[in-house]
Structures are given as C-alpha cells and as structure tokens.
C-alpha cells in the first residue's frame, strides 16, 4: 500500500508550544467541493439553497450520513457491506411488529430493532472476520436472506403498520430549527471521531485496517476489530432504521433501498480508503451533504432521471479524483 497511515490522523506539529492539528487534504477536499457546489447552486439555482429546501434535504442527508459512517467503518476494516438495505428493512419491520404502533411498547420495539440489526451484523462478522470469507459475497448473501425473512415477517404484521406516534413526533421534530435526525448524525459522528482518534481501541482499529498482518504481529487481535466493524456498522443501520421509520411513519419494505450504493459513494467521497485503515467521519458527513445537495439540485433543475444519474455519477468520479489528487498533493 502506497499511502501511509499517518494521513489518517491529524499531525501535531509543534508551533510556539501549541499542538495544532493539521488536517490532511484527503478529508478537506470534500468540504471544498461542497462549498463549490453550494456557490454554484446559489448563483444558478438559488431555490436549491433556500431555507425550505435545506430543511427538506437535511433529514435525508442525516440518514445518509449515519449509513455512510457505518459503511466507512466496514471499508476501513478492508471489507464492504451490501446488506445495508436489508438490515434497515428488517429493523424497521421489527420496530413495527414489536410496537404494534403503540407508544407503551416503544422502548421495547427500539431495543428489538437494534438487536435485530446487530444480530445480522454479528452474522456478517462471523463469516467475514472469523471464517475469512469475502465480505462482498457474504453481505450479498445475508442481504438476500434477511430480505426474504423480512418479507415473510412483514406479511404477518399488524394490519395497521405504523410507528408509535411518540417516535413519529420525535423523529420528524426539530430542535432549534434543526431536524432531530441531523442532531443524531452529528452526535454519532462526534462519538465515532473521538473513538477513532482518541482511544486505544480506535487506533488499533485503524492499524488493523491499514495492515492486518503487521497489527497481528504487534499482538492486536485483528479478528475482533474486523468483526467489530460489522457489528458497530449494523448498530448504526439499526439507529438509521428507527429514525427513518419514525420520519416516514408508515415505512414499507423498500425503506432501506436507497442505502445500498449511496453510503459507499459518500464514504469514498469522504476520503475513506477502500484499501482499509483510513477514514474520517467528519469528511463522511461532508460527503453525505454533498451527495444529497447534488441530488436535490439536479432534481430541481428539472432533469430527467436519466440525466440526474449521469450528473451524480460524474460528480462522484470528479469528487473522488479531487480527493485522491489532493491527498497526493498533501503528502510530504
């Protein structure tokens, strides 16, 4: 691997006695791209940056951020997770099934929904980390199986399949004019950033992703960290499912469908290295905002779906190029 792991973490250069973190360009690039997109939208499509539009985009950006952070963890562990839509749909179905739309059972339902997600993550972890099977194939298979189980479970659900009113009010609510989902995304980002940057476990996790053999030689239990990435990611998908279900109120089997490729795109645009070890949750947040704003702007331009897809694809390629180019430029 030609990228050194010190790009993943801020360097601390001694300057007049103060330790000032210097962010690698790899993670700054997406914020520059987001600012550029914002400026272009402000000039050519002012409505797309109007407060009402931002209020529309923000919850979806938050949902994507949570999914993308989960995917970024898996990518950092040198794997990939294609079971995200199925896990989200399963968690959502369990939430509906256990709660029966009843506020009294809300906490039980949320717990069950999160446990269901974690259980699938544990299965993925077992096959990928313990049995050393290919993550792409494993998660594709578990995704299909979980999809089937969810379909069977949903067919036997209560006739009135809606989330408890308390959750709907909460997930659709605002705190200081910012959607609740956005606060969740920021909180998760902060926790993960501190965990990765400031704890021993986080450092070890990055080391395992960067070079599993070297980490193993240093006495780090690589299986634990690789499997843990899947489990933690699945917990995030569970959180996403709960918030998203509350936001939608009547989630269907398709509730997880938008979260197959978009989180991978956001994670990679955010500078997460597919080769493992390198990632920044702050940059992933920026990338999610970028992807959602681009999606919204292309829709508001009245582009046909075909052109929307082309524009988004080109933007992702350009974003990746910018990210790679800037990370190379930032190396010393």
């Amino acid at each position, binding site marked *: 691997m030609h990228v050194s792991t010190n790009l993943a973490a801020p360097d601390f250069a001694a300057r007049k006695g103060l330790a000032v973190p210097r962010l690698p360009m790899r993670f700054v690039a997406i914020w520059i791209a987001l600012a550029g997109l914002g400026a272009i939208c402000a000039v050519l499509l002012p*409505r797309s940056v109007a407060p*009402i539009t931002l209020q529309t985009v923000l919850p979806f950006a938050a949902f994507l951020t949570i999914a993308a952070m989960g995917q970024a963890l898996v990518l950092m562990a040198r794997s990939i997770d294609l079971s995200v839509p199925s896990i989200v749909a399963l968690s959502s179905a369990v939430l509906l099934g256990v709660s029966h739309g009843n506020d009294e059972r809300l906490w039980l339902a949320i717990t069950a929904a999160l446990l269901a997600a974690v259980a699938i993550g544990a299965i993925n972890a077992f096959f990928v980390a313990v049995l050393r099977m290919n993550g792409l194939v494993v998660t594709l298979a578990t995704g299909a199986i979980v999809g089937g189980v969810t379909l069977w479970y949903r067919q036997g659900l209560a006739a009135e399949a809606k989330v408890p009113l308390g959750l709907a009010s909460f997930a659709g609510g605002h705190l200081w004019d910012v959607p609740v989902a956005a606060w969740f995304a920021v909180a998760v980002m902060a926790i993960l950033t501190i965990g990765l940057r400031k704890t021993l476990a986080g450092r070890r996790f990055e080391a395992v992703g960067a070079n599993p053999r070297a980490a193993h030689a240093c006495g780090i239990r690589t299986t634990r960290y690789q499997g843990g990435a899947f489990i933690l990611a699945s917990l995030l998908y569970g959180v996403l499912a709960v918030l998203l279900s509350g936001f939608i109120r009547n989630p269907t089997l398709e*509730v997880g469908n938008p979260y197959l490729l978009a989180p991978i795109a956001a994670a990679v645009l955010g500078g997460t290295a597919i080769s493992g070890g390198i990632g920044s949750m702050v940059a992933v947040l920026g990338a999610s905002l970028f992807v959602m704003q681009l999606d919204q702007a292309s829709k508001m331009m009245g582009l046909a779906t075909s052109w929307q897809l082309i524009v988004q694809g080109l933007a992702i390629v350009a974003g990746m190029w910018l990210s790679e180019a800037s990370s190379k430029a930032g190396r010393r």
Partner: protein
Amino acid sequence: MTSWKRALAGAAVLALTAAAAPAAHAATAEDLMKSRLGTTEASPVIVEAMQHAAQPVTPELRAKALECWKNNGCDTGTGGKLSVAYADGFGENVWRRVTAMEFIQQALTYPEIGKIQYTSARSDASKAISDLRSYIAQGVNVIVIFADHGAALGPTVREAKEAGIQVVLHNGTEVGTAGTDYLTNISENICELGKAFVKAVREGNPAAANIVALGGVPGNTLSSTWQACAEEEAKSLAGLKILAKIDTNWTQEGTFTAVSTALSQFDKIDGYIYEYADGFRGAVRAYQQTNHPLDFVAALRTDEQGLFCDWEAANNPNFKIYYSSGQNFQSRFALTAAMMAIAGKTVPPHIDVPFKMKPAVKGLCNPSLPMEMSVSTLVDSETLKAMFAGN
C-alpha cells in the same frame, strides 16, 4: 383433506352455483359493476365475471378458498375435470395476495373446475418461465398471468397456447400479440386514465393551474403512457400546466422525496396525478413534514385504503382525492374469459375494463384491515380478515 370434507365442500360449491338469487345481504352483479366500474355497460366477459363474483360466499366456501390461498392451490372437491392456474410474476405484497384470492374465489364458483394452482415468481424472470413450463407439462386448461416480465415470457406463452391452454393476461401487462399468442388481454385504457386524472383535478378545483405528475420506476411504460396522454389533456384545457414529471419508484419513500423536491421547487401546486395511492401516502408525509397545508387535489389510479385513512385524519376540505380502482378483480375477469373460451364462446383479444374517477368520501378507511388493501376488492371482508388474521 378427508373425503367427507371434500364432499361437503363440493356440495357447497354446487349449491352455490345452483342458487338462482344471491343472499339478501349480497350485492348483485349490477351493484358490483356500478360501484367498481361506474357503469353496467361492459364486455360480456366482465358481465359474466361479475355474475359469478356476486354469488354469496358461504362459510364452507370461505374455508376452501382460504385453504387454497394458504397452500398455493387445492382440489376444489367438486370432481370437476378442469385444472386452472394463476402465474404471478411478483406475488409478494398485499395487493398481489388479494388478487390471488380474487382468482381463487372466482374459480370456486365454477363446479367444472376441479383443481386450482398458484405460483409466485418473486420477481425472478427465470422462475416465471419455469412456472409456466411446469403448468404446460401438467396439462392445465387455463393459465392466468400477471406478466411482470413482459416480453421474456413470449416464447413460453406461445408454447402454452400451442399446447391448447387458454392463456389470459391482465392489469396492463403485455406479452407478444393478444389474440394471436394468447387468448386475451384485460386492462383499463391507460391513455384514457391519464386524461381522466387531469379532468379529475379540474373537477376538484376548477381554478387548478399547476399539476405535478408522479411516475413509477424510471423508464417504465405504464407511467410514460398515461403521462403523455395527461399532457395532451392539460394542453386542451385553458390555463393548466403539468409543471414536472418526477419518478418515485412506486414506493412511499420515493414519493416522499419526489414531493419534497416539488414543494421546494414550485411556489404553488394545485394537483398531483399518479397511479399509486399507497405510494401517495409519502406525499402526505412530505407536506406534514414541511408544515405545508394540504391544499391540493390528487387524482390516482389505485385505491389502497391507507391513503383514505390519512385523508380522513387530515380532515381538510382543501385536500381532495379522486381515485379509480386497484382492480384486483381483473384476475376474476381473466379466469371467466378463459372459461367462456372453453365453453365455445367468442372472446375478443382485448377487453377494456371501464373505470371511473370517484371522489374520496369518509368511511373508506377500515383500520382492522391492512392499509395496503384496495377498497374496491371483490373479496368479502370476512375472508380478508381471515387472510390477514394473526397479523
């Protein structure tokens, strides 16, 4: 099934079909046509199908239908010589499950039918083809198809026709040439539906000027067909414009984001036209989420009751819905068309199912049934409750 139960069920079917008049509580065929199709003027196939559908459902028949539905097929117990099959290309939502029950209940009104079979391809084209091949190999007499996979089924459908099987398609799916490659295709006139949407918006709000058209999966022919005709109709009406056509993937979530976009893009939207009522629940959510007043007319093809529950809950006189029908009962028409052909009657290659846009009224919402249930289904509520009991 034990022989005495089979005999009992058989007797029930015979008694049912021999009944000259339906039970007092049951609707007549004319009632059903008026309420579901908005007219009593329709193809003889539809008239005959409705006469069968109007026959009362006895407890024994209900039990038999449920057995058949749960087990994906059954012997009817009548000793009939004919074997009929329903090949569903998807089969995995409430609408499809109810449509299957419509087919089964219709089949149980024909004493000459001794065996009913059902398969779901679960969106897998190769399974859809192998299901059809299996029916051909078994030598069934009738195959009714929800042909989700369209042209991919062409050669197999032709093979079935050549084997002497009466094959019928329904609900707007297309394979090859109707009347040549298979017996008949049953559907509403999709172009007229698009025009009716626009007229309905104007009926709900004579001053309506701006409409947003919502479509399904990008590039699907159903949406593009009715949208083109809706645009024609809009041009013919003064001051009416279709602002945008936005894809929704036919999901509530997709509709939510599509309508959220429309709300941020346009200052005033007077109406929405769309083929999927259940998906439109996402539009209601989008309005509620952005605290927009529900001040528009929606014109929709299907009639899943969840939206009507949302509409009643909103209790807003400025929010109007016009709807046609989910048309689950087309599987009944399809079976009857095949049975008429077997009886030597002439069946045309296309059967247009009449439709009528109706305003939503209070009382359409029944919380004890699945929200995805079409209010116009001909399956009786007792059977529906039993189908989705234990939910």
